[in-house]
C-alpha cells in the first residue's frame, strides 16, 4: 500500500469519499470538514501525515474531534479554531508541546478535524485512528478498550470558552459533559506513543486506507455520492458533458 505523506486537494477529495464509506451510515458528513481543510491549504498551510513508526518513542499524540449531533454541525459551522484553542490549552496544562494529532474515528465528519488542527498547529497528523470507522462513543476506541484514560483533556467552543478536565471518572463521563447536543469541540487526551502503537496497530494506516478507498470509490463513482454526481451531470450538460 502506497503510504500517504502529505494531503493536498486531490487527497482530500478521496479521503472525503473514503471517510463517508467508513462512516458506515453514521458520524456525519465529512463535506464541511473537507471544505475547511481545503481553505487551510489554499491559505498556504500544509497537512503532513506521519506513519506511527516514525514518531519518537516519547512523542505526545492527541486524538481530537467533535462530539454531538452531526445535524447541528451542518447548520452551526464552527468558528474554525476551536480545536486549536483546546490543543493549546492542553499544551499549557501539560507544560509540553504536542507532537502530532490522530483521529479517534476515521469515519464521518471527525476524519477531517485532526488534519485541520494539525495544519493550524504546524504538526503532522498520524496515519491511523482509534476505531477504523465511526462509532457512537469515545470509550469504543481501541485505546480506551485497552485502558487508556482521557484526562487531562480540553474542550472549546466558538465563543472562546475553554474547559480543561484534569480528571474524569471515566470516558463515558467525559463525553456526557456536553450534556446537550451543542456540538462543542473536544480535545481528547494525551496518548503516549507506545500505547498508541500497541492499541491502534490493527487500525493502521487508516488515513491511507481511507484515501485508497476513496480513490477506488471515485473510480466507481457511479455507485457513490450518487445524487450529487447525477444531478451535476444533468444540470451541467450544457457546459460539460460527463
Amino acid at each position, binding site marked *: 500500500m502506497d503510504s500517504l505523506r502529505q494531503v493536498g486537494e486531490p487527497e482530500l477529495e478521496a479521503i472525503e469519499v473514503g471517510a463517508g464509506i467508513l462512516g458506515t451510515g453514521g458520524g456525519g458528513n465529512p463535506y*464541511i470538514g473537507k*471544505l*475547511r481543510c481545503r*481553505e487551510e491549504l489554499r491559505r498556504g498551510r500544509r497537512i503532513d501525515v506521519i506513519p506511527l513508526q516514525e514518531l519518537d518513542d516519547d512523542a505526545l499524540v492527541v486524538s481530537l474531534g467533535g462530539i454531538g*449531533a452531526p*445535524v*447541528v454541525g*451542518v*447548520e*452551526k*459551522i*464552527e*468558528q*474554525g*479554531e476551536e480545536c486549536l484553542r483546546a490543543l493549546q490549552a492542553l499544551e499549557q496544562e501539560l507544560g509540553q508541546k504536542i507532537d502530532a494529532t490522530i483521529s479517534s474515528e476515521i469515519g464521518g465528519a471527525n476524519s477531517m478535524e485532526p488534519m485541520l488542527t494539525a495544519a493550524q498547529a504546524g504538526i503532522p497528523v498520524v496515519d491511523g485512528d482509534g476505531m477504523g470507522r465511526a462509532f457512537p462513543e469515545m470509550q469504543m476506541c481501541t485505546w480506551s478498550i485497552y485502558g487508556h484514560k482521557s484526562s487531562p483533556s480540553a474542550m472549546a467552543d*466558538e*465563543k*472562546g470558552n475553554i474547559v480543561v478536565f484534569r480528571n474524569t471518572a471515566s470516558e463515558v463521563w467525559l463525553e456526557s459533559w456536553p450534556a*446537550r*447536543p*451543542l456540538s462543542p469541540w473536544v480535545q481528547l487526551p494525551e496518548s503516549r506513543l507506545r500505547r498508541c502503537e500497541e492499541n491502534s496497530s490493527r487500525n493502521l494506516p487508516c488515513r491511507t486506507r481511507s484515501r485508497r478507498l476513496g480513490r477506488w470509490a471515485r473510480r466507481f463513482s*457511479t455507485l457513490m*455520492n*450518487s*445524487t*450529487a454526481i*447525477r*444531478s*451535476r*451531470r*444533468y*444540470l*451541467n*450538460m*450544457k*457546459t460539460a*458533458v*460527463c
Partner: protein
Amino acid sequence: MYRIGIDVGGTNTDAVVMDGNKLVLGVKSPTTEDVTSGIVASLSQVLKESEIGADQIGAVMIGTTHFTNAVVERRRLSKTAAVRLCLPAAECLPPMVDWPDDIRDTVGGHYWMAKGGNEFDGREISSIDEDELRGIADEIGKKGIDTIAISSIFSPVNGEMEQKARAVLAERLPDANFTLSSEIGRLGILERENAAIMNASLRRLSAETVEAFGKALQSAGLNCPCFITQNDGTLMGSEFVKAYPVLTFASGPTNSMRGASFLTGEQDAVVVDIGGTSTDVGSIIKGFPRQASTSVDIGGVRTNFRMPDVFSIALGGGSIVEPDDPIRVGPKSVGYKIHTEGLLFGGRTPTTTDVAVGLGFAEIGDAEPARKLGSERLGAICEIIDEMVVNAVERMRVSPEKIPVLAVGGGSILVRDKVGELPVVKPENFAVANAVGAAIGQISGEVDRIFSLEKTSRDEALESARKEATEKAISAGAKPDSIEILDQEDVPLAYLPGNATRIRLKVVGDLDG
C-alpha cells in the same frame, strides 16, 4: 374550458391544448432568444391547428428551464450581496466558499458576516448589532448592489433575525430587494444560503421573464390566468415566481416524468426522456417523481431542495457515433444541427438516429447512407446504445417488479420494445410530454406555522394542519376529491414553552374544470 401547457426548453418551445384530461393537440417550435416570440409562435400555432378560440382557454401553465439554464450558463445573474448572521460561529467557511469560481465571479462574490444567529434550541449565538448592519448596508450601497440575500444560523427554526436584519438594511437601502434563506430552504446553512443567493441573483431575470410571458399571452389574444410550474409539479402565480425563481429549478424533469405518467396512465415506472444530447432517467412512484435524498448540485452549486432524483447520460438522438473500432457513442452531439449534419439528411456525421434509421426502427430521411455501414456494424453500435440505456434504467429502478419503461422525448426512437427485461411503453405524443406535464400542474395548499402540543397530540396537530391546507387548496381552485398530502415536515421547537412544533405541510389537487 381548455387549458394550454407550454414547455420552454433550451431547444424547443412546445405547446399542448388539453380538454380536461384529454390531450387535444401538441405542437413544437424553436425556442427564440427573446423567449417571447417563441411562445407566441407556439401559442398561435396550437390555437390555429386546434381551431379553438382564445376565449375558450381557461388557463395557461408554463414550465421553463430558463432560470436553471441561466445558472448553468452563468448568464444574466445580478450582482448579489450575501449577508450571513453567524459570528463568531461559521467564520471559517464564508458564503459561496464551495462555489465554482466562474459563477462566484458572475454574482460578484460579495459577502459580509455579522453577529447574530441562533443555537439549535433558539438561544442567540450573539445578538444582532444594528450598527454593524448599518455599516454593511453602507458598504453594499457603495458597491452599487441592490440585490441582497440574508442567511442566519438556525433560521428555519427561528427566522426573526433574518427579518430584523432585512428591516435594518432596508432603512439604508430602500430600493434593494431581499431574499431570506428561511423562506427558501431547510437545515444546512451552506446549502440554504446557496439557494438564497442564487434566488437573489435571479430575481431581475425572473421579473423580466414573467413579464415576457405575460406579453406573449397578450399577443396571442389570451387573457386567462397564467401559472408557472415549480419543482414539485405544482403551480405558482406570476408574483410568486418573481420572488422565488429558484423554485422552478427542477420543474423540467418533474414535468417530463409527470407528463409521461399521465400520457401512459402508468403510476409506477421508470421514465426515460431522450432528447437531442442527453437522456434523463427518473422513477415514478404512485404517479409522483421519486425525490433525491441527498444534496443536489445546480451548475456546480450545492443546494438542498427537494428535487426529483434524475440520472443523466450523454446519449441523445443527435449523439455522434464513431463507427470504426473502438466504437464510440457520444458524448458529443450534433444537437439541433442534425437536420444538416446527420447522414439521413445528407450530412456527413453518423449519429445514433442514423443507426436507428439504418436498422429500420424508424422511418425518417434517407436510410441508405446509414445502411452502408453494414448491418453487423449497425448491430454492434445498437448494442452499445442498448447497454447505456439499460445501465441507466437499472440504476434508477427501485422496484423488483417488471415495471414499464416510459420512453418520451424526441430521441426515444433509440429504444424499442424492451429495455433489458422491462417492457417499453411509448405514448402517442411522446415528444410533448413536458408540456403535458405543465398542463396537468396541480393546485397546492400549504401550511407553515407553529402548533402547541400542550393540549393536543402530534397526530391531531398534523390533522388540523392538513384540514387547513386542504381548505386553502380548494379555495385556490383544486378539486376536493383529488387532494393528497405532497409533503409534510415537523420540527420540534425546544426553546418555546408549551411543547411547540413547527409543522410544514403541503397538499395538492387537480385543477377543477
